[in-house]
């Protein structure tokens, strides 16, 4: 039985006067991977950034609701820092901070004011183990994070998000800058992480959406064209536009 983790109701988003997302209604299910697909400029990244209010940085105006744990996250008095801890995010390009590997993972905890060293140590090791990075770098925890390969840096960014014990992980094209082997590792990692987390991923790679997601959302021109189980959508999509997009006729 699937449980709803996030519910989007009549959600619209505007940048200045331009409506970028139009009447989005959607359920994100717990411990499932939901892939957002669609051609460039369709609103995928804007939608994923709506789940932890990252569009606030771009002066977006919104109406409608995004309900997470019973609370509308678009409410003005919401604690954004707390929201972004619970709904973590990883971006397209790995963006480790110019600190050591250890400090990157410990960053969120220290920002929250946690000073207990043994707690932080434990959390750093666990998070690095959770992304299968610990064994690769355990002898150089205090080396610069910049010394890691692209794939390792991306896993470090996931570990940094995991250290905050998020309930939802947002990934905006997390493997588009990675080689096939590093991509495979991240995909395998998501399969394991979804047992503990709810995952939403934006991807341009249709085959990747098919491989890793339980649900797929196809957006076109800021509107939902089709949402449903990935296995169904990739075998027999309901909508002609979805069919045309995933078979490469357009986009």
């Amino acid at each position, binding site marked *: 039985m699937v449980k709803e983790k996030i519910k989007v109701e009549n959600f619209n988003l505007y940048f200045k006067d331009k409506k970028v997302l139009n009447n989005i209604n959607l359920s994100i299910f717990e411990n499932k991977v939901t892939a957002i697909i669609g051609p460039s400029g369709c609103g995928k990244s804007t939608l994923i950034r709506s789940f932890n209010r990252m569009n606030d940085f771009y002066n977006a105006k919104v109406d409608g609701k995004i309900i997470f744990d019973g609370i509308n996250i678009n409410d003005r008095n919401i604690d954004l820092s707390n929201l972004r801890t619970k709904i973590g995010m990883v971006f397209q390009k790995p963006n480790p901070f110019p600190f050591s590997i250890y400090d990157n993972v410990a960053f969120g905890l220290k920002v929250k004011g946690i000073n207990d060293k043994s707690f932080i140590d434990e959390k750093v090791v666990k998070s690095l183990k959770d992304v299968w990075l610990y064994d690769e770098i355990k002898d150089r925890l205090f080396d610069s994070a910049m010394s890691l390969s692209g794939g390792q840096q991306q896993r470090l960014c996931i570990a940094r998000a995991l250290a905050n014990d998020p309930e939802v992980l947002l990934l905006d094209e997390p493997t588009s800058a990675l080689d096939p082997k590093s991509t495979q590792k991240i995909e395998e990692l998501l399969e394991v992480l979804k047992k503990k987390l709810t995952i939403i991923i934006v991807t341009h790679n*249709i085959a990747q959406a098919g491989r890793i997601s339980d649900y797929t959302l196809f957006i076109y021109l800021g509107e939902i064209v089709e949402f449903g189980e990935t296995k169904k959508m*990739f*075998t*027999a999509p309901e909508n002609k536009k979805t*069919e045309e997009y995933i078979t490469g006729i357009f986009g």
Partner: protein
Amino acid sequence: MLKDRIESLKKELIDYSLFIQKMFEDSIFSLKNHDLKLSEKILKEMEDFANRKEVEIENECVSIIATNQPVASDLRTLFTILKINNDLERIGDHCVNISSRVDSLKSEKIFERNKDLEKIYIVVKRMFEDSIKSFVNGDINLAKEVLEEDDNVDMLRDKIVKEIISGINKCEGDSFLEIVIMDVARNLERIADLSTNIAEDTIFMITGKSVKHHFEKI
């Protein structure tokens, strides 16, 4: 490009189906007319070609799937091609079974001896041709007509078997010939089943729904 490769593979499959249709007609012709030369050709040359062609189409299908990761209608078309390809090869095997009876029959004309055999052949031939037509034209109604015919074939086959067993029990007629008639009827009925498979797979290709065993309605 993926679409071009699928289109070209579809043409290959259609050519293959025309070959198997000819093999089917020839196998019945050789039986009706006691044409040993034709039955030899089916057993030695046509079966070999049919087997090689099946492998060729299968390899191309696997290669397209491996290199293009097709989805939606492309994926359904490729799976349908793969399954019809296998069905055609099995129809070829039944044609071989029918042809292999020609030698043992001497000059006996079994189609004249049992009129129901001709009836069943006419229905099965139409089912086979229509199943391929439905695939070629994406014609769901024609595919459904094929499914509806299957029960008629089963009934005709049962009638033949029942009458023959009753005759054997009464020690009437030539038992060997009756067994051959029963065997040919059984092979024809299997060709009808395989034509039904082709029609069901065609419906899946068009609608994405499986109508096998009446699990889903269209």
